[in-house]
């Protein structure tokens, strides 16, 4: 592939992924309000445009028009760095997700993944754990007790749940045998979804994903009843918008990761029987992935508006005393099943 073609194709892909991420995050705010309303027998925002479809625009305008407040006692640079980091790390994770199979134009292959790192899973984890810095720095720089408590809670919560999340992924890596996201997605063609192989791991991963994105029932860092607004108490205007927006981007990316890891990614069973054109299949794959992502975003919101928030000690209990032992057990079972022939031989001899 010529360098210019390559450059233009990558630029278009990066911009498209970035734009779609922002668009989905924007409309997640609308979806959240609508779903919350519907689950509570209300109708939700319906004034801006038909069915309130322009509500995110109105919200964005409101966010930009608000007065920008930086507390005089805060550390100004860190105060600005906090939301920027949160947003940056949230946007970085979309790079390794395979959005679909490759397109073939003029005999050239155009992969729908920005970059296929051979350690994509590790990259994903390192970037996600960077995400805690935005919240921590924001909470620390505000120089406010509530913010600081929110920041501390966020960091300890994310660190605790990262352990269980990583352990549940180890079991997945044991069965797939690869750290490349593209490979993991490609292995799940037909009905070979990883959730059928790793149901316990999938459950642990989803629970940890809720905790990592600070979504209810694990939204302790910003829990309104105790901490005013948690780490973003002192934030206003678009800096607050960045924090909230980063949460929705994280939710989108988490949904994409859950779909890719456990629910077949862009694969859909039986579709190969009716569609044979590879380009058509690739485009349909993107559609299927987004259907799955939409379901998981709905699932995130559905859980948020059903379950009450955890108490802090319950959160830590669940993380350290239940999820981590369970994920270790999962690893042991996975190992035992994959070595079953050798183990049987050992005992029958």
């Amino acid at each position, binding site marked *: 592939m010529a360098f210019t073609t390559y450059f233009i194709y990558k630029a278009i892909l990066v911009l498209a992924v970035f734009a779609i991420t922002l668009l989905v995050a924007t409309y997640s705010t609308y979806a959240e309000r609508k*779903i919350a309303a*519907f*689950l*509570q*027998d*209300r*109708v939700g925002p*319906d004034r801006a445009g038909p069915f309130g479809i322009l509500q995110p625009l109105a919200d964005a305008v409101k966010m930009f028009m608000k007065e920008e407040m930086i507390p005089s006692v805060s550390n100004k640079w860190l105060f600005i760095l906090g939301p920027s980091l949160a947003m940056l790390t949230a946007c970085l994770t979309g790079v390794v997700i395979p959005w679909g199979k490759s397109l073939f134009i003029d005999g050239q292959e155009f992969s729908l993944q920005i970059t296929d790192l051979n350690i994509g899973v590790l990259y994903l984890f390192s970037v996600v754990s960077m995400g805690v810095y935005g919240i921590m720095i924001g909470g620390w720089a505000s120089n406010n007790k509530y913010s600081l408590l929110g920041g501390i809670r966020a960091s300890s919560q994310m660190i605790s749940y990262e352990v269980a999340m990583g352990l549940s992924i180890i079991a997945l890596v044991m069965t797939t045998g690869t750290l490349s996201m593209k490979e993991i997605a490609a292995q799940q063609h037909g009905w070979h979804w990883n959730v059928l192989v790793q149901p316990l791991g999938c459950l642990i991963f989803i629970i940890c994903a809720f905790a990592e994105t600070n979504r209810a029932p694990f939204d302790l860092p910003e829990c309104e009843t105790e901490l005013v607004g948690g780490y973003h108490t002192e934030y206003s205007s678009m800096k607050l918008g960045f924090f909230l927006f980063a949460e929705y981007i994280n939710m989108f990316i988490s949904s994409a990761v859950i779909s890719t890891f456990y629910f077949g990614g862009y694969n859909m069973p039986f579709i190969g029987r009716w569609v044979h054109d590879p380009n058509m299949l690739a485009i349909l794959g993107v559609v299927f992935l987004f259907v799955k992502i939409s379901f998981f975003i709905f699932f995130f919101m*559905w*859980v948020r*508006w*059903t*379950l009450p928030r955890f108490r802090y000690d319950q959160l830590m209990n669940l993380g350290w005393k239940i999820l981590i032992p369970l994920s270790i057990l999962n690893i042991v079972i996975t190992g035992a099943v994959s070595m079953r022939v050798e183990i049987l031989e050992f005992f029958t001899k």
Partner: protein
Amino acid sequence: MQSLTNRSKVVSKKEMTLVERMYLPAIFSGMLITLSHFFKRKPTIKYPEQKREFSGVYRGQHVLKRDEKGAERCTACGLCAVACPAEAITMTAAERKPGEENLYREEKYAAKYEINMLRCIFCGDCEEACPKEAIFLTDRQVNVYGQRKSFVYGKDILVEPKDNPIDLSKRQSAAVKEFKTHQEFGHNQTYDKNRKVKVGGHH
């Protein structure tokens, strides 16, 4: 001691079973409950487009009525202002000049009549106090404005338009009109039937 009501419940402190301690079945059933609400019909009334149906005796924005010939009924006696618990009503009386008989029914009329809709509590005491059947509360709602002074309604808003009389048939039903003719009730003795002023109320 025996309890007087059956409301108290004995709390069981039994150990939770393994299934209960997993919480997942409970979470699942809870999520099914919320999902069932997702598809329920919403009771919301989308206000400016849809309006709740009011009963005939709803007490909304006031109207100053005209008589059959189109003359204003109000005689500025001030009883409504006295009756008003919120002190929302003020008025200035004036004497009718010769030649204004088609404008004002009585020899005295309200040159200015103002109701502060921010003070008004829509109790309907003015309607009750009025001996001339001049002021009524209607099933219309008071508008929303950006400034406080806009809520002081003068005669320009309150007096019903000549060509478009406000229908009060629901609150002034035939039964009510018939009831008002009963002279044995003290409060009906001031009722102005056939323009003949009844005298001799007890109070």
